[in-house]
Structure formats: structure tokens, C-alpha cells
């Protein structure tokens, strides 16, 4: 177990590679209760979220989820998050565990009018991901979960426990994230694992969560994105909607858009065997052009892969680069991402 922001969390149960493959082949359960949740409500909730986040919250229907960002006025990322529209004037925002305090300061400093509540302590979160996830959650739920679309949610009971059943995740597989009262988390967790055992569904630790998300190119805050990275260089321009009107960071981001980002987050695949890791320099013709932000062996692609910021001139797919590993430059190539094809249920 490793300490993570005050939580004791398993890196692995039976081995990272085996757990990774289990999620892609059958399914896995992740206790991600460390994630933070804020609720915001009132007549000003929508306009306040519009000002605080980069995506267009007005486009969100009740029962829909949206990936989005909090940005500083200088355009750097405060956090990445998901926004849930619970009712016309009531929302839930899910944030990264390591950023709960910073995010809370951010929303209360820049907010005004709407009522915010930090419900992180009282909210548990269990993710069920993989090809068997729908059948497993479906067996235990009192609602028809097959009707929940991608990035949609319903409220219902799972294993007799009141939950928000959200068709979202961080693995690239179909599945759900189940928000639950903290006191009920263990009951839900146990019921899911018992009911899933026959299908080969197993508990999955933080290690496999990281390799699964890396193969999908999902950014990890603190590794790939942080207070100093701009959404456009991180490839997150698709959740920045300047047409919606004013929001924190808009001007700075639009300046970057006009000039073009100086560097870009790209996917790398090693062409020489070696493991790229966070912080290793990326070189082009013996000159440093960037830095690896996440890297690992990718169990499903069976290759050594990385995310790295590189100068925009070297960001095109097919560009041959090098990663400096223990003083030696090892060959790498810019490749298309995601590294592994997603199997989420769209449409």
C-alpha cells in the first residue's frame, strides 16, 4: 500500500500487468474514493460554472457528464475534471484527489452567488470497467443500465445501495463509475467483487489504472498537465469553447491559439528497447526538444510508450526522436494516439 494524499491505496493486488489485462479482457473494480467531489447549486450555478470551466456547460443536459478544465487567468491548468448536471440548477464536479484543496480555493475565490459544497469526504467512488462491466452492474442494479449512454448517468440502486451510475471511466473500456455514500462504499465494493468473480472481474490497483489510462492517452494531472501547461499544448483544445463567452483563462488560451503552441504533448513509441519515464529528456539531433511526462511498458500494445512534450516542429506523427535514458539516447517515434483502440460504448 502507498500513501496518496492521506489515503492508503493498493498499487497492485496480483501484479500490474495481469490486472491491466484483466480489465481489457473481462473487467475490474477500482476503489477511487480518493477523488474529490463538489456540488454547486442555485440560480447562479450555471453561469458560475461557465466562468470557472473551459467547456460549454450550457450544452449539458440533465443526466449528462462533461469533461472539462479549471484554468488560471494565465491559462495554466488548475485541474481537469468532469461536470455532472444533476438538475437544471444543480451540478456535481469531480476533481483530482491531489487538487481538492487547490480547487476548493479556486472555486470559492472566483465563484460568487452559487452555493458550493465540498462533499469529497462523504462520497465514495467505485469504477467498474471492462467488457463484463455492463452485465455485472446490470445484474445488481434496479435500473436498466444498458440504456445509459456514454457520458450519461442515472440515479439508482446497485446491490441495494443508492448510487449515481455514470457511464464514464479512465481505462478506454466500457464501464461505469458509481458514486456512493462513503459509508456504503465497502458494501458496494464487496457485492460487485462477489457478483463479478464468476466473470473473472477482479480488484485493480493504482498501477494498472495508470498503464490503462496511458494507453488511451488520458492525461494524468501532475504528470502530463499541471499549473504551467496550457490546454492547447496538452491537446485538450477540444474542451475549450471560447464561443460560449468569458471564462477564466480564455484570453491567455486564445493568445496561444493565435500564435500556435510552442510545444505539444505527443505519443511516443520506443523504437529501441528501453522504458521511457517521467522526466526523461526528449532529444532531436543531439538537442533537447522536450520531456517525457508519462511512460511505461504498455501491456496491451506490448510496447514501451510515453507521452512527452516536444517542440511543435517535431510533433508530427512519424517524426524520429530520441529519449535520453541513463545518459544514452534511445530511439523513439511520434505515433498516433490512443496507443490502444478504445472500446467505450458510444452513441
Amino acid at each position, binding site marked *: 500500500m502507498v500513501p496518496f494524499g492521506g489515503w492508503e491505496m493498493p*498499487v497492485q493486488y496480483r*501484479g*500490474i500487468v495481469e490486472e491491466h489485462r484483466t480489465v481489457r479482457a473481462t473487467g475490474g473494480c477500482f476503489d477511487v474514493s480518493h477523488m474529490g467531489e463538489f456540488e454547486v447549486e442555485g440560480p447562479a450555478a450555471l453561469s458560475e460554472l461557465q466562468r470557472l470551466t473551459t467547456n460549454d456547460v450550457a450544452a449539458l443536459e440533465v443526466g449528462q457528464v462533461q469533461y472539462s478544465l479549471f484554468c488560471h487567468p494565465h491559462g495554466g491548468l488548475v485541474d481537469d475534471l468532469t461536470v455532472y448536471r444533476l438538475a437544471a440548477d444543480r451540478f456535481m464536479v469531480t476533481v483530482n484527489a491531489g487538487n481538492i484543496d487547490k480547487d476548493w480555493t479556486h472555486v470559492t475565490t472566483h465563484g460568487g452567488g452559487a452555493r458550493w459544497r465540498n462533499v469529497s469526504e462523504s462520497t465514495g467512488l467505485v469504477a467498474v470497467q471492462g467488457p463484463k462491466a455492463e452485465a455485472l452492474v446490470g445484474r445488481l442494479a434496479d435500473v436498466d443500465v444498458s440504456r445509459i449512454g456514454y457520458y450519461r448517468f442515472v440515479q439508482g440502486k446497485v446491490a441495494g445501495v443508492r448510487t449515481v451510475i455514470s457511464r464514464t471511466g479512465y481505462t478506454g473500456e466500457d464501464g461505469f463509475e458509481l458514486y456512493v455514500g462513503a459509508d456504503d462504499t465497502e458494501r458496494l465494493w464487496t457485492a460487485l467483487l462477489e457478483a463479478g468473480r464468476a466473470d473473472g472481474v477482479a480488484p485493480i490497483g493504482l*498501477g494498472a489504472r495508470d498503464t490503462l489510462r496511458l494507453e488511451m492517452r488520458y492525461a494524468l494531472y501532475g504528470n502530463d498537465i499541471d499549473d504551467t501547461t496550457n490546454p492547447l499544448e496538452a491537446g485538450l483544445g477540444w474542451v475549450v469553447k471560447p464561443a460560449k463567452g468569458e471564462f477564466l483563462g480564455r484570453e491567455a488560451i486564445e493568445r496561444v491559439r493565435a500564435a500556435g503552441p510552442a510545444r505539444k504533448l505527443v505519443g511516443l513509441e520506443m523504437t529501441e*528497447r528501453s*522504458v521511457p519515464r517521467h522526466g526523461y529528456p526528449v532529444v532531436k539531433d543531439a538537442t533537447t526538444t522536450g520531456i517525457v511526462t508519462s511512460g511505461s*511498458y504498455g501491456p496491451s500494445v506490448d510496447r514501451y510508450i510515453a507521452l512527452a512534450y516536444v517542440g511543435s516542429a517535431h510533433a508530427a506523427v512519424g517524426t524520429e526522436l530520441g529519449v535520453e535514458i541513463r545518459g544514452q539516447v534511445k530511439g523513439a517515434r511520434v505515433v498516433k494516439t490512443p496507443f490502444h483502440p478504445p472500446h467505450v460504448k458510444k452513441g
Partner: protein
Amino acid sequence: MANVPPELRYTREHEWARQEGGRVRVGITAFAQEQLGDVVFVELPKVGARVRAHQTFGVVESVKAVSDLFAPVSGEVVEVNADLTQKPETVNQDPYGHGWMLIVQPADAGEWDQLLTAAQYEQLIAEGGH
């Protein structure tokens, strides 16, 4: 408790050494591979390279960590396990067998006696491995 074959000698850094007709075969212990988790990369010296006792001769990487490999004895590398390049997981599956790493022609026969015995190594890992 991890497997500690009695006929081998050990380092404090969790390598094992086996006498084979005047040469020394080297690998990492069952305890070491358990602690590392899934081994995904092994970097070894070339045949002909010289290694020195207690100095690093290579690197083993699991999904989460990079660890140095330490030579039990000094000498010339006469064979390396090239299969580990394509199948690093062999280190997890068979650490004392197909997961071996090097064969060294020792330069100083006296170094062998300074290695830990199986009983001493068992004591080390019983104390947490440090």
C-alpha cells in the same frame, strides 16, 4: 517466505551467485522479483565487459520502478542471457533458472567467501530485505 536455494550465495542487494566449474552464474532472487513486480525490461552488459563486485552491472525495470543490478564478484562477463531482452518476464517466472542474467569468469576467487550464505540471506529478508 520466498525461495532461497541453499546451494547459492547472495548479495545484500538481492542477487544470487552459483559456482559452475570455476565460473559464476548470476541472477536476482525470488524475493527481489516479488518486490519488483512485473519485470518489463532488463539491461545487461556485453560479453567481454568487466564487472566489479558491489558495483552495478545493469538495470532491471518493473512497471513502477528502476533498480540497479550489482555484481556479486569481479571478473569478465563470458555469457549474458539474451532471451531476457524479448522475455523479461522470465525473471519473474523462473528467477533461479531461465531468468539468469550473467556468467562471470571471476578475477578473484576470494570474493566468493564474502558473499552471504543462504542462511544469512534468509535472515536479511526476514528483517525486511534491507
